[in-house]
């Protein structure tokens, strides 16, 4: 775990990502900021369209065109400003210092190349290493992520492997060069429930063993519970609450977070009506004035329609963007 006074591994400030829309560029992620300490696992939780995936992609400067990261944003990794790096330097960072795994293992691997060769590619893109040595290291990674029969699996093609195996290989490929930060964009969403638990266990164990920090994007609080040290909740392009896992799951202060947690179906509550948050997520460009959640918030009052809330520290580690908290009132 991280020491509280060590410099954070990643520091994001004022990150705004926009896409062309009706009448110019429309912000999809609006001036968010967060930090990840060394070896820590941060989960960003939100519904689809909240901008969470894009935030992760921005860390690697892989925001798909025609999207843009607005000027004035800052992404510092180990003290270096990522957004200012020249392209070759950025490529040296990708895969070696920061790595990423994606949601769909089915399509995220090149179908005509063996999985072993793809892991080898991840190595040889950054280090001049003889083929045999690279293959040995790939084998090691396979074993690290718990792939059975690793030796034979090296020469398999993606279509011959199950979804769970493919995702393990993605993890192996991502960690092959020992990156300090792993970005995981909904890594278990496309997998069966039983496999989900296995993959999360792999991520958690490997991250712990190698001391890798993890940024995991998810919409599932079950995932949060399994792997996260800290959590940030995103809504409509902005972060509405952040804190430790315990604080968010047990003592959430933002009405949105509370609504999300309440709407998770629980076995004990069988027979009761399923809770929901009324209304729909506003589209980028159509965000309400003031607090973006006020149209769906059961506690909204006059100030919420006018003024966007700023961060209020609830504890040393928990912060919430809500007027109620600022005024010391609990929702």
């Amino acid at each position: 775990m991280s020491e509280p006074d060590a410099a954070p591994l990643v520091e994001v400030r004022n990150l705004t990502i926009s896409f062309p829309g009706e009448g110019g560029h429309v912000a999809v992620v609006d001036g968010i900021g967060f930090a990840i300490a060394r070896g820590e696992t941060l989960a960003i939780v939100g519904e689809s369209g909240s901008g969470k995936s894009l935030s992760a992609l921005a860390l690697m400067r892989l925001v798909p065109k025609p999207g843009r990261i607005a000027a004035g944003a800052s992404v510092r990794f180990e003290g270096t400003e990522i957004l200012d790096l020249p392209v070759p330097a950025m490529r040296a960072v990708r895969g070696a210092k920061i790595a990423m795994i994606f949601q769909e293992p089915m399509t995220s691997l090149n179908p005509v190349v063996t999985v072993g060769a793809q892991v080898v590619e991840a190595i040889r893109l950054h280090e001049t290493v003889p083929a045999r040595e690279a293959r040995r290291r790939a084998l090691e990674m396979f074993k690290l992520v718990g792939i059975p029969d690793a030796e034979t699996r090296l020469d398999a093609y993606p279509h011959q492997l199950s979804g769970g195996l493919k995702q393990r290989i993605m993890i192996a490929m991502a960690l092959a060069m020992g990156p300090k930060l792993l970005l995981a964009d909904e890594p278990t969403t496309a997998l069966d429930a039983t496999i989900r638990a296995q993959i999360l266990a792999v991520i958690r164990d490997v991250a712990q063993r190698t001391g890798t920090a993890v940024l995991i994007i998810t919409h599932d609080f079950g995932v949060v519970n399994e792997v996260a040290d800290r959590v940030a909740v995103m809504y409509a392009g902005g972060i509405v609450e952040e804190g430790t896992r315990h604080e968010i799951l047990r003592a959430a202060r933002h009405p949105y977070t509370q609504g999300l947690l309440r709407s998770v179906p629980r076995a004990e509550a069988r027979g009761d009506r399923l809770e929901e948050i009324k209304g729909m997520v506003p589209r980028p460009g159509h965000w309400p004035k003031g607090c973006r959640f006020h149209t769906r918030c059961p506690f909204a009052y006059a100030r919420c329609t006018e003024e966007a809330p700023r961060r209020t520290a609830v504890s040393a580690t928990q912060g919430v963007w809500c007027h109620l908290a600022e005024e010391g009132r609990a929702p």
Partner: protein
Amino acid sequence: MAAYLIRRLAYGAVTVLGVLLLLFVLFFAVTNPDDIARKAVGERARPEVYAQWKTNHGYDKPLFLNRAYGSGEARHYTDTLFFEHYRSMLTFDFGRSDADDTPIADRLLRGAGPSLSLTVPLFILNLAVAVGVGLFVAFFRETLLDRVVLVLCILTMSVATLLYIIAGQFLVGMLLKWFPISGYAGDSSVIWRFLALPILVGVVAGFGSDVRLYRTIFIEEMNRDYVRTARAKGAGDARVMVAHVLRNALIPIITNVVIAIPFLFTGSLLLESFFGIPGLGAMTVEAIQGNDFSTLRTMVYLGALLFILGQILTDVCYAVADPRVRLA
């Protein structure tokens, strides 16, 4: 894989038999030996001349079943046009031309060389240019360069090949005098001057549709998830486009390309005829103009045979290129 190949070959063989049936119906039933004789000999000859001509060219047999068997005339009841047609085509015994009585096989062998000397370089150049330009504009999609190339493609696609040939001969041959307008002579060091213009015209004529097709294929591949993964690993643009996009795009490209290989032999009818290259295409054009049905029949049969072979070759290459097919 071996089982697949055998099945493919078997189906190909059945198709060949079907094609031969089609040819038989076209060349012996829809048009009959009397018409052919009349066209070859002329309208006003005496009946004996027709009969003699038909005998010389093997057209004097009945259509399906020879009922004269046993009475001394016929060799067997299968001594008919139908069986003879199948036998000769399947054993590559092509007989003689209806027009000038020369053995077709000889002319085939003589014409193959010139045809290949035109179509092989044309094919390679076409492929290189179209794939190269397609890859390039796919990478620069939505930019001005891409749009300009696309407009160019639609424009060039809309011009008839005939016009390209005429324009090519006129502009480059006559006005600019860079290359000879037509002909085919001299040894290998000089012959390229005669091939340069037809190859140039051929590349320009095929440019538009090929580039658009390849561009679409490449763009589809570029939007796939594994390309994003490659970039996330730190791969540069060149590596992504070649080792990942091109490699995967090869699969649909192969389907398009290998089919064309058999046509390397049959030659381009228009190009050879216009540019005076004495290949198989020119031979076919002569057969059309001379109402030479037996040569025409042979050319169509060869075209189909090579095409079927090309399809089988395509399926095999497809299996080699795509492990999902190979190891299904």
